């Protein structure tokens, strides 16, 4: 009976997908909803590829997934993925039913799934990934994710014992997940910019996970990312099997050390965060047995998803759109740090506003006080416009961060924000927008470009 139910669910899902595709839709979620509704254990029954790689973690999982899929494609493997859909159970169910025949047998050799951390308990026990990659574990949405220790516990409780973990060894929260599982670590060697004392507000790995004593950081990149040890019990950060060294963001190059060898790679972008993402994808490909030369060739031409970062010139100004996940203090802190480290003068529009929340609710703004707005207190950042439903909260937070009042502007209407900028030749204008404001951000960008051209023509 349950097999019949599964087949009905599969066919209903496939039919839903066909209908949605006929209507020009992506069909990356609803077919999964239908299948799971009709057959709650659909994920356990549907045919799965021999190789499943699940990528989870707070930040970078989309980019890492994209990279792995592109690398596999370049190596001749067409992997199933959920890049256009949801990273929860329905999205992955939709992807799996796409890849199987009417009998439920899988047609693909491999799948790469981005998985929401909290959804791992609804996914991992059923799809049984061969590899689970944890990019990092930071604070995310206060409401949904509470804190990284909570998320680490959820992932750990969902992992099949036979799954091999590929973990960020520079992140002791991620590195300590499920110690009984087989694992490989990636990490980046000490950088010139590393420090020993935390300069960030969020610092979630202060105490030794074994004895509770205070950890000593040999170096720290940001937040709890770095290498630490405990003087009390001898616990220390793991040695990475795949270690990025000689990272040169300006020259967009790094070396990956492995087993005594050194392998040169070009970087896909000039941000440290994406260097980590690239290293993660390289570690996965190495675990799959691909040679460094092959991976390097496959990386040629790969770029960061344009919806998350792109820049265009207008007049004498560079207008940059950068997604900064709203409600995510870490992601915004990293974005602020990146912007403040860029050369030249800048103006910024802050519009990470959880627009969805503002329709019926009011955003929980606690995260603004976990976030390092202090990075924006730099003389080269000549103006910051706080805009949208939470404009006043941003404005107050920026003042508390020490940003001089004369550099700040505040407007409720995002479309009005570009008119509050000054547009100086040679400067960069950054538009920081949230995950549900892509369309609005493009419209703000177009207005900023228009005004830059008018101002500097």
């Amino acid at each position: 009976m349950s097999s019949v139910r599964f087949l009905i669910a599969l066919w209903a899902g496939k039919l839903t997908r066909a209908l949605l595709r006929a209507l020009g839709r992506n069909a990356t979620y609803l077919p999964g909803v239908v299948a799971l509704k009709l057959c709650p254990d659909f994920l356990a029954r549907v045919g799965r590829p021999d190789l499943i790689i699940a990528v989870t973690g707070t930040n970078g999982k989309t980019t890492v997934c994209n990279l792995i899929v592109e690398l596999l494609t370049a190596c001749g493997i067409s992997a199933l993925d959920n890049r256009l859909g949801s990273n929860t159970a329905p999205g992955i169910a939709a992807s799996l039913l796409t890849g199987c025949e009417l009998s439920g047998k899988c047609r693909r050799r491999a799948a790469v799934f981005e998985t929401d951390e909290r959804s791992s308990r609804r996914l991992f026990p059923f799809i049984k990934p061969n590899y689970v990659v944890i990019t990092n574990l930071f604070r995310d949405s206060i409401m949904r994710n509470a804190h990284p220790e909570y998320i680490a516990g959820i992932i750990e409780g969902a992992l099949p014992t036979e799954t091999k973990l590929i973990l960020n060894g520079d992140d002791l929260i991620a590195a300590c997940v499920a110690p009984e599982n087989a694992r490989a670590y990636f990490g980046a060697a000490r950088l010139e910019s590393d420090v020993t004392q935390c300069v960030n507000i969020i610092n979630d790995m202060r105490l030794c996970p074994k004895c509770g004593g205070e950890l000593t950081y040999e170096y720290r990149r940001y937040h709890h990312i770095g290498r630490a040890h405990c003087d009390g019990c001898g616990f220390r950060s793991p040695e990475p099997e795949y270690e990025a060294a000689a990272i040169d963001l300006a020259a967009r190059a790094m070396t990956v050390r492995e087993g005594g060898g050194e392998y040169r790679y070009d970087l896909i972008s000039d941000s440290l965060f994406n260097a980590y993402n690239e290293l993660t994808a390289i570690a996965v490909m190495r675990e799959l047995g691909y040679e460094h030369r092959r991976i390097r060739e496959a990386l040629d031409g790969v770029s960061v998803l344009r919806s998350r970062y792109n820049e265009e010139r207008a007049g004498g100004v560079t207008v940059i759109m950068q997604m900064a996940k709203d409600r995510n203090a870490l992601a915004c802190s990293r974005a602020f740090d990146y912007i403040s480290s860029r050369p030249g003068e800048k103006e910024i529009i802050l519009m990470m506003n959880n627009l969805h929340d503002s329709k019926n609710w009011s955003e929980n703004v606690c995260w603004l006080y976990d976030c390092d707005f202090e990075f924006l207190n730099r003389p080269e950042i000549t103006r910051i416009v706080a805009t949208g439903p939470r404009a006043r909260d941003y404005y107050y937070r920026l003042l508390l961060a020490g940003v001089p009042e004369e550099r700040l502007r505040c407007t409720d209407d995002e479309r009005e924000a570009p008119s509050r900028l000054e547009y100086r030749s040679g400067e960069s204008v950054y538009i920081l927008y949230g995950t549900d404001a892509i369309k609005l951000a493009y419209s703000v960008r177009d207005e900023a470009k228009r005004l830059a051209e008018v101002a500097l023509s």
Partner: protein
Amino acid sequence: MCNLYGDPANARLLCGAVPGASAAYTALNSRPLFLDGGADIVYIGSMTERGQAMAARALAPYRGGISECVDGGVRFLVTGNALEVFGRYIDCEDGSRIECLGLFDVYAKRDVARRYNGLYLGNYGEIEIVGFTSRFSHLYGDEDGALFETIRGVGRRPGERAEGLRRVNFMASYVLGPLLITNPLFAKELLRDMGAGVTELPFERAAMDAYNARLREFRNPKTGFDYGG
């Protein structure tokens, strides 16, 4: 350790508001500095659930001294789930129990599978309080003294108007915001009670603009308060 949900900004605001003020931090396994006197206010903020157990264990040897401080009028501000450490115990979803300091006749019931998120609107005397709650547990028991009276949202537990704990100068609340950041009038009242000699908060106009905007949203009957898990 008590550093979740932006709560340390409460302490930073107090330090920034009072010229010459400084903060002294007590490490987890150290004797609390305030037991030796000299603190104008003791602040404890939100922590992880494991952190609650560690804090309750670390503070247990000092229970008598802390109780004397509370009854003797030492000023405390406790926010988020830190208030549960001052109750009798925390009952967890797995059947385990974390013994706490037992200074207040309340206990918490925790279920990490059910996160409660909501907005909060209440009263502190004449002052309207706005903020958020985001937690795995609710508070039960017979303790009388509440800090806030709930207008909309959840108090100590669903259906309960009493929010937080109050005894002499001990003030504890589940409300996040951070509490003093989102409530400049309450922050000023607290500083006045402390005798800090502060007539205006840093960037008070901006703080009041944000407070008034939020108050308008929270008073609006169309604004949803229960965000679910």
